[in-house]
């Protein structure tokens, strides 16, 4: 059995022996993206399991081991991981946990430490925790983020964004129920299969795949009666994770809406871009800036390929590239606003509005510090400039009830319907007048 080794600060390390013996448990935020990322890790020789549990026990476990005023995502992620170990499904002495660490002024950078504290409280101090980050925080002998893995993870995220984007645009309109979900599943499996044979992770496969996926989704028969489109923005975890947002997407689908969820790529580029901005604003190492710039350009290129593939389909709405989105916040926030989702959150709201999606749910954990500023704090200014915007801010936490959240979303939807009717009426009256104009 692998020996427990600590570094000089007393942190338990994930050793090379552990890599062979241990199963790494990872939380899940985005089902498609994370399934692919998990495969990438497996290709590097790690044994990885993705947790998909979603019952109340997770919240209870979280409440037990995490300070209750800590943000909801931390409570859920930590609850989910510990609950998994305690479930008896795994040998606690043969599991490790992996969690992302963004680094930055938001308290989210502390999740990993809260997780370790929680493990200790639960009597599981012997379980190693791996930090997944690009900042060079916390190194482990048994885990390394090599360039190949980084690139594959980036591919996974782009694939994930594409499939999510297409699925969201198909599902509300599918004629045969379940067709979209089946298509999603088919492509996730297909990509995993490609990964297994070291395919799909090379530049030429990548471009080919983007086109194949887009074409395949375009073949789903749809009934394109217009539906109300609702954008979802917010703190990264509650925005994406059904566990975090009480199945918000499903709720919106049930209400007869089309949910529009901006992807993950922008967030990744945003985090890299922040390092460049820091040097611009405050001075710093130009070499560091250059490295970040190269990485940013690389991902932006992949994003451009995605956008191109979607545009070529002529069926689907394509997202805007990062640099276009970035321009939108001028006059609202500075680019130095980088903690949490930072200026990107405001930018995403503006992107949606520019795209004609005026109805937006802005999600955040109760008491989320950055969102006081970039979410709730910007709604007033956005509404001043874009009166058609119809934004509702919803807080999520272990005590918030679904009924209150849904009631507020329903109000937003009622207004959306009213606005739609007005537009429709205006259109009809314009159409009626048109012949007169032509004379």
């Amino acid at each position, binding site marked *: 059995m692998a020996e427990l080794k600590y570094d000089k*600060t007393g942190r338990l390390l994930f050793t090379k022996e552990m890599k062979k013996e241990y199963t790494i448990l990872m939380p899940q935020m985005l089902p498609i993206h994370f399934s692919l990322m998990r495969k990438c890790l497996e290709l590097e020789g790690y044994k990885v399991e993705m947790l998909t549990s979603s019952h*109340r026990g997770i919240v209870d476990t979280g*409440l*037990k*081991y995490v*300070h*209750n*005023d*800590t943000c909801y995502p931390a409570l859920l992620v930590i609850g989910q991981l510990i609950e998994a170990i305690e479930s008896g499904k795994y040998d606690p002495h043969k599991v490790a946990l992996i969690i992302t660490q963004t680094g*930055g*002024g*938001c*308290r989210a*950078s*502390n999740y*990993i*430490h*809260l997780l*370790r*504290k929680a493990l200790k*409280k*639960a009597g599981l101090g012997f379980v190693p925790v791996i930090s997944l980050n690009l900042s060079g925080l916390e190194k482990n002998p048994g885990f390394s983020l090599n360039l190949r893995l980084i690139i594959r993870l980036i591919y996974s995220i782009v694939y994930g964004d594409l499939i999510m984007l297409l699925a969201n645009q198909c599902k509300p309109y599918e004629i045969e129920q379940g067709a979209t979900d089946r298509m999603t599943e088919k492509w996730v499996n297909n990509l995993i299969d490609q990964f297994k044979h070291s395919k799909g992770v090379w530049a030429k496969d990548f471009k080919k795949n983007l086109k194949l996926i887009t074409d395949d989704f375009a073949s789903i028969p749809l009934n394109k009666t217009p539906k109300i489109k609702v954008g979802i923005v917010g703190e990264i975890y509650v925005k994406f994770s059904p566990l975090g947002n009480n199945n918000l997407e499903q709720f919106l689908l049930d209400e007869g809406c089309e949910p529009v969820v901006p992807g993950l790529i922008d967030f990744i580029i945003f985090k890299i871009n922040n390092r460049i901005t820091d040097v611009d*604003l*405050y*001075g*710093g190492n130009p070499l560091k800036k250059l490295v970040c710039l190269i990485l940013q350009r690389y991902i932006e290129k992949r994003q451009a390929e995605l956008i191109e593939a979607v545009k070529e389909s002529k069926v689907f709405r394509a997202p805007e590239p990062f640099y276009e989105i970035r321009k939108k916040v001028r006059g*609202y*926030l*500075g680019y*130095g*606003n*980088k*903690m949490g989702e930072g200026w990107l959150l405001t930018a995403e709201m503006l992107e949606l509005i520019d795209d004609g999606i005026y109805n937006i749910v802005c999600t955040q954990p*109760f*008491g*989320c*510090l*950055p*969102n*006081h*500023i970039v979410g*709730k*704090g*910007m709604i*007033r*200014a956005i509404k001043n400039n874009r*009166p058609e915007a119809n934004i509702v801010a919803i*807080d999520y*936490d272990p*005590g*918030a*009830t679904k*009924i209150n959240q*849904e*009631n*507020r979303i*329903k*109000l937003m939807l*009622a*207004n959306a319907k009213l606005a739609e009717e007005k537009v429709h009426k205006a259109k009809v009256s314009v159409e009626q007048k048109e012949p007169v104009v032509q004379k």
Partner: protein
Amino acid sequence: MLVGIDVGSTTVKVVVLDDSKNMIYKAYERHYSKVREKTVEMLKAAAPIINSDKIQVALTGSAGLGIAKSSGVDFVQEVFACAKAVEVEYPQADAVIELGGEDAKIIFFKGGLEERMNGSCAGGTGAFIDQMATLLNITIEELDKLSMQHEKIYKIASRCGVFAKTDIQPLLNQGARKADVAASILQAVVDQTIAGLAQGRRIEGNVVFLGGPLYFLKGLRQRFIETLKLDDKSAIFPENGDCFVCYGAALYAASLKERDFSDVLKRIENSKEKTELTQTLQPLFKTHKQYEEFLQRHSKADAPKIDPEKYSGPAYLGIDAGSTTTKLVLITPEGQILYSYYSSNKGNPVNVVKQQLEKVYEICGDTIKILGSAVTGYGEELIKNAFKVDLGLVETMAHLKAARHFNKDVDFILDIGGQDMKCFKIRNGAVDGIMLNEACSSGCGSFLETFAKALGYDIQEFAKLGLFAQKPVDLGSRCTVFMNSSVKQAQKEGASIEDISAGLSISVVKNAIYKVIRIPNPDELGKNIVVQGGTFLNDAVLRSFELELGRNVTRPAIAGLMGAFGAALAAMELELEQSAILSRSELENFEHTSRQTVCRRCTNHCNLTVNMFSGGRRFISGNRCERGLGIEQTKNLPNMYRFKYNYLRSLKPEKGPRGKIGIPMGLNMYENLPFWHAFFTSLGFEVVLSPESNRNIYSKGQYTIPSDTVCYPAKLMHGHIEALLDEGITTIFYPCMPYNFDEGISDNHYNCPVVAYYPELLSANVERLSRIKYLMPYFNLSRKRDFKRIASDYFNKEFEIGKDEIAAAVDKAYKAYSDYRKAVFKEGQRIIKFARENGYSIIVLAGRPYHIDPEVNHGIDNLLNSLDQCVITEDCISSLAGKTSYRVLNQWTYHARLYNAARYITTQPDMQLVQLVSFGCGIDAITGDEVREILEKNGKLYTQIKIDEIYNLGAVKIRLRSLLAAMEEVKRSGRAKV
């Protein structure tokens, strides 16, 4: 025929319109959580009016959503329905304010339709008034009437019900006039509506007021009219204000297809079966036999009673003047109970105690002699002064004494009273850690009681219902307000009263375990757990606690009287020959009157209640320090808060050629002001600071706060900006600073997101800022060379100042800041030396630089001084501990100071740390735990005080006195290291 059905959180409304949309029927009734039954009943009652079979019908309201879902009847969102009705009836309306049972809503019509509902934290409104009326022991109608006779209005926190309650309780205990309190309660509702809902828009023009509370309560109307400066014409109170939303739903129904009335009825009646409760818990007792065994086990911990007729000799009196109840115990030297009393204090503890004392004297007759008396609890000082009680002691000590009487090995005590929850660990015979509930989670006994009443039961009856509930509902473990909506959801899902009762008991317990005690493993509580407080007399709560902990605990039969019992034991320890308490004859002439006034001796402007007793004795309460008592502070102990504050406020504007530049005095300006002041003064600007914070400054900016859960120091910034604008300042400087200075004790040196970016939030929400020069550049002061270059460019561009001049100003700024830091350090050393030479102990009142604002800390520093403590701050000792690694990511400058200060004091026997935490500070969820760990690992006590708008220091005082008493005990037991 159009029918609207509005099923709210507490009431059902039905409105019927004829074909030309005239209202021909309306009804309004409370549903006591029997949502479906009541709806059906009311529809049936309306049946004779609805004489046609074909109707168009719409449901609305928070509980209506569930019925609509399961019955298939159309639903319209209530705010939407309301807007529709107002558009038809009052086209001139600019805004609508609607208060319901638990929701508050606002609709703006002019300048773009905008609708808002209260956020999840803003709490109930109608339900809040209900709770407050219960607290005052009057009906809502009486509260309304009383409020019209007010003379003054107290500051009551308007964030949520729980907070307001914490403010009101001490006012009552101090003897404030009920009329004034009533009006203050209604004013809090108004403030909450404005603060929580307006969010950056002013409520003006013609305002329509709707909803039950505003329909029935004239006093509430008056408060709104006065606050919003409306008149008879612009304040509109529709005749059907109580049913207006329902009317809107009926109007909406006109767009729906016709249905069979009988079919609609049937659908609603049958809708229950389709819903399944999603989250339920294990029953408390599966069988009656289990319950009997449980009772049997707990009957063992009893205090023997003795018939006073058969006893003669000495006796000792203990009084516990609690927040909602008054308890009184008379014991023999052997601890037998001669007489006991437990009852609600009905808002006036003085009266209750007076009556009880008369009763005690009657019982004593000539044979029993009272040799000592002691009082504890919220009303301690008032009662002590009123009746000349021999001893006043802090309640934690009283409880400890009592618990030890029943179990001398007790190592954990949990007390859940009406208003607060206390628990303390006992190690080596001394109180080792004290935990009190934060203002946010105090859903304790009185919560259960109010809830029972709201559902139409008395508390005993209600609690019993839960004992054998089959599927208790899971209501979570957050604050009262959240529980209210959880209950609402459970009702929607068709939960029975029994299941809700059991669920509430479990909730209270979970709150205690996960919010207050916060211990995942019961082994950490020790083997001998004593539970007490009135709430534990409730078997359902007790059982929930044992089940949740997975172990049995001791509940003394006098669980509700433990404070008084402990006080009596303490009175006995005094070993007096004769108690000084008012004699029987003195009591006969006893009179008590009170009068309100405001202390003007410092900027805190404490509300004072002057209590006058017979014989010309006076007792003044509500003051933070001794000054209000008419005594000038004699000792004037050193106080770093005062020192820092005075230092910053002494940085005066100097007239300069470049004109005025305004700086809002809040958040990180409390750290960086010396820097910016020197910088701008050197450049020839007159640096104008916003005025000192107070409640008025806060109110001034309240209407532009977009997020009601942000911390109070941040909220104050809105007022400071408004104040500067009002002064006619046309240039305001407030930089964004994600990075702070690097003090070499942390891995990174961030500010928190709120401190870092609040300037941008202000720019986006305070409209007037767009009309002046508002500068909010991004700066990083930790990189001096880069800053000099960047600042030169920036200020050169903004003001056309030469770069050399700017560079020189930058140097002066760094020097001024460094001087300030040095002065703070030096003063810290001076205070420590002074304390040691004069035998005072030292409290490190740790927090953030902006906690030195008296409006933020509410004078806690002065309070500590008055308790004979010298006060220093974390930042004057943090440099003494050096850098090390912690179990958290140590990346915020201010927080790194906390860790270091904590580590430093573990080596200083005469220092204790008290951490101030702003409500809503997400980062302190992390720092608080870490600081606690650092301290407790080294055998130190940890005390945390949450501060917000809350004005009254009663709870804080108890906490600090408990800490001091614990320190005393430890000192006496001679344990090292504390």
